[in-house]
């Protein structure tokens, strides 16, 4: 048990100390880490419903978007930062409560698609409610330099979502969610109050993206619907969770670290390299192929879907390594 806590504690400790280091690139790294935290929170909270309960919620980003907008609206109404942040998350949970009953009448692909449609629906509703949201003019809040506080706050949300997800995994609620994933009809036959469990899971999973949405607005200070409802933003965290290992606590984290890491470390760097080769008489600059990162990202996602349905974390060697480090939480 000690071993299992040691590693995360060390990581969080190092992250806590990092902003204290004096270096030029500090804020740049903090921004990358913020992107990472954002994705971990979205992927991890998605996985509460998507991985533990088996409902592939393609509309998870809506909670984030509602959090982002509600935070901005509350902040501009002079509610103060803390209240606005809580209000943003609250709005997201309320929205989850509103949609939970009707949406959970749907199963499997129908649920996923209706949720996916909800992303676009809410995007247009947001645009057309200009009086509240600023419509396509965007929502703007007071400017300021917030890189460091944002970093700590988002780290706190990451820790919270991971702990929450871990507790759920060990709880009676978590067991019920897993039975729903395995076979909803049988779960019900054995007394699991299916609807109640599903609603609880959705409410929990909507809280964290709501919080993170507020932080995102606070950070970017000027948001529009493209940024918070965009289809790629909607789908990447889900891909991350599946990539790392859906249903495992460590899975979404691995997925997010991997994708954000690949993006930052390899492509940003490779794009700076001018490695010219002569190919069939043409001068080809290899560096420009760094612009194909979207394709390579896609390819990785395809390969995982094809060959590793359990994600990286369930690959036997990785699994052994994680088990040795005590990071492989039970999901049976």
């Amino acid at each position, binding site marked *: 048990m000690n071993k299992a806590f040691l590693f995360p504690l060390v990581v969080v400790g190092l992250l806590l100390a990092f902003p204290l280091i004096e270096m030029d690139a500090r804020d740049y790294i903090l921004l990358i880490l913020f992107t990472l935290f954002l994705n971990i929170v979205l992927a991890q909270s998605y996985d509460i419903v*998507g991985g533990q309960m*088996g409902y*592939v919620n*393609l509309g998870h980003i809506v909670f984030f978007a509602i959090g982002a907008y509600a935070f901005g609206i509350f902040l501009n109404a002079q509610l103060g930062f803390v209240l606005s942040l809580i209000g943003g998350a609250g709005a997201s949970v309320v929205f989850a409560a509103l949609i939970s009953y*009707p949406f959970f*009448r*749907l*199963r*499997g*692909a*129908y649920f*996923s*698609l*209706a949720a*996916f*449609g*909800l992303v*676009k*629906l809410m995007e*247009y*509703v947001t*645009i*057309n409610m200009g009086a509240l949201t600023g419509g396509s003019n965007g929502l703007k809040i007071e400017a300021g330099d917030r890189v460091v506080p944002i970093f700590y706050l988002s780290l706190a949300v990451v820790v919270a979502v991971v702990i929450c997800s871990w507790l759920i995994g060990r709880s009676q609620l978590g067991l019920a969610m897993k039975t729903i*994933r395995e076979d909803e009809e049988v779960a019900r036959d054995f007394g699991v109050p299916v609807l109640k469990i599903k609603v609880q899971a959705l409410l929990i999973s909507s809280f964290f993206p709501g919080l993170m949405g507020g932080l995102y607005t606070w950070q970017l200070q000027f948001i529009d619907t493209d940024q918070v409802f965009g*289809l*790629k933003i909607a*789908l990447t965290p*889900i*891909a991350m969770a*599946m*990539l790392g290992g*859906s249903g495992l606590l460590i899975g979404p984290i691995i997925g997010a670290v991997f994708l954000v890491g690949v993006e930052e470390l390899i492509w940003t760097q490779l794009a700076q390299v001018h490695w010219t080769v002569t190919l069939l008489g043409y001068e080809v600059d290899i560096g420009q192929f760094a*612009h*194909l*990162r*979207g*394709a390579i*990202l*896609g*390819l*990785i*996602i*395809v*390969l*995982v*879907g*094809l060959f590793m*349905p359990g994600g990286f974390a369930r690959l036997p060697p990785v699994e052994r390594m994680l088990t040795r480090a005590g990071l492989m939480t039970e999901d049976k």
Partner: protein
Amino acid sequence: MEFTTLVQVIINGVLLGGVYALAAFGLSLIFGVSGVLNLAHGEFLMVGGMAVFLLFDALQNVWYVNPFILVAVVAPLFFLVGLVFEKALIQPLTQRKEHVRLASAVLVTLGAALVIEDVADFASRGSQYEKSVDFFIPSLVIGEIYLETNKLVMFGLVLILIVALFIFLRFTYVGLAVQAVTQNRRGALLVGVNTTRINAIAFGIGTALAAVAGGFEVINSMVAPNIGLPLTLKYLCIVVMGGLGSFLGVALGGVIIGLGESFLGFFYPAWSQTVAYLLLVTVLLIRPKGLFGK
């Protein structure tokens, strides 16, 4: 609203809905047979449109080809593309447990969509980002009502394709097998249907239909690398609204959304693009399995 205006709005909506239904048919066929939501469907539409554009552009100075003929040339190629795509990416998933298959299919087809979009984006660097062919036949004018000839031809082709598809599904062995698999996969397997082959054929047909729709887009409007996912989503709305696997539902869903967009476009254009998603959610909440779902 005057009567002629009403007629014109309805005609616009139906013509639009016909083209929607065409692409959505492909998606519905694929889902019905393989149980896979193909998130790359819109990308095939986009690439199909690009193929028509590239052929048109390359031939333009040699001899002027009617782009509709190019659509007919491109469609069979995309049948093959669909076969290969299915063989390589979808077939390995079919044996998995349902919720795993759903998740894996999302991953695989989404990944494929990203790859296709990004490669198209990258390939557009040397040329133009939006692609559209210059092709126009004067419209038919009856009184105050304008019938765009391009769209009429498209609608006619859509009808022919749909009838052909219907005949194929009703009267050929492969077609009957496709229906059998759609209705009951295990049962079809038990009576000796080669489901692997049927899957591939359904994917081929679906992809070819997407490419045809892409050709229409390039004639009537334009295609660009980033149009794929939003279109996929709209077609998914149509398919799900009609009821997964129901062909009648798709045709009706397409026309309903076409009409909805047409009417709102006339009065409140700002809401016109919301129709599909609003209807999707509303219909599912009232009938959780779509209009014609079983």
